């Protein structure tokens, strides 16, 4: 949500109501917001700043929020835009990859990528511990990481994600699909480096 999109059109709440809406509708989502900010920035200080800026912005533009509508999605959209506009450039994350570049790459190599990921075993994923799974997630480019966090960790629907990310539902589906293919590739590479059995061939070798 750009600031120009959340310009107050009318005074919806009295001063007392503003605080009530903020406390009852916004504050219950603060842990999810912090987790999202941390997963985007990979840094606790940046996550603190991002969440604080988001909540202050939400309070400032509270008249744009209609009570009873989806407060969580509204807040996530502000946070995502604050991250893109204010934090992405100065983030401490070492390797930044522009989403457009990544999408172009994976559009052109999707078939090859599929061959590489189909032999990741369900059992291998089930055996992996949290840190290993988190490392694979963190190694994804931020735009791919974002859709996986929103869908799998925060449980947003495709429709809600489309609103948060300001993209069509079809793009949400495609981006998720590519993000998951890349995630499986990362999980497979990570599992391989940690000595997990990653395909049926490993079983056969063991049996032999």
């Amino acid at each position, binding site marked *: 949500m750009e600031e120009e999109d959340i310009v107050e059109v009318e005074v919806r709440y009295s001063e007392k109501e503003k605080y009530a809406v*903020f406390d009852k509708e916004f504050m219950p989502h*603060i842990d999810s917001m912090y987790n999202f900010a941390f997963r985007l920035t990979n840094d606790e200080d940046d996550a603190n700043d991002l969440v604080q800026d988001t909540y202050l912005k939400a*309070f400032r533009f509270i008249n744009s929020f209609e009570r009873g509508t989806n407060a969580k999605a509204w807040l996530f959209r502000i946070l995502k835009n604050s991250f893109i506009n204010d934090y992405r450039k100065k983030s401490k994350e070492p390797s930044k990859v522009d989403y457009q570049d990544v999408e172009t790459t994976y559009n052109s190599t999707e078939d090859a990528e599929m061959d590489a990921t189909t032999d990741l075993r369900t059992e291998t994923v089930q055996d992996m511990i949290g840190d290993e799974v988190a490392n694979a997630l963190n190694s994804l480019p931020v735009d791919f990481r974002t859709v996986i966090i929103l869908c799998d960790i925060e449980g947003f629907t495709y429709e809600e994600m489309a609103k948060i990310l300001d993209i069509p539902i079809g793009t949400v589906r495609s981006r*998720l699909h590519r993000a998951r293919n890349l995630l499986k590739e990362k999980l497979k590479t990570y599992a391989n480096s940690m000595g997990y059995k990653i395909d049926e061939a490993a079983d056969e070798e063991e049996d032999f």
Partner: protein
Amino acid sequence: MKYQCENHQKCMKMIQAVLDGSASAEEVEHFKQNMDACMPCIETYKLEKSVKEAMQVKVEKKCCPEKLVLDIKAKIGLTLLLLGFIAIEVKLYHIFFSC
């Protein structure tokens, strides 16, 4: 039972949408009708489900530090406002119930 899936990319997107609870009614119906007859799709379903569950269950959820909650409330004046309400309630209590 099929051992080759000629529409695997399309099926994979559909399976993901079903697991995400965002599939259309038609997709859900197609999934129910055809799922058991295609081995690559069955394997895909199991793998996609395990990856999704790993994200949900195994990735640590970071909680917001209490200090940040207090800082935000202080910055918008919510703490002050709540203390004001409490003070007023205490005063009212004393007025009505002190004698």
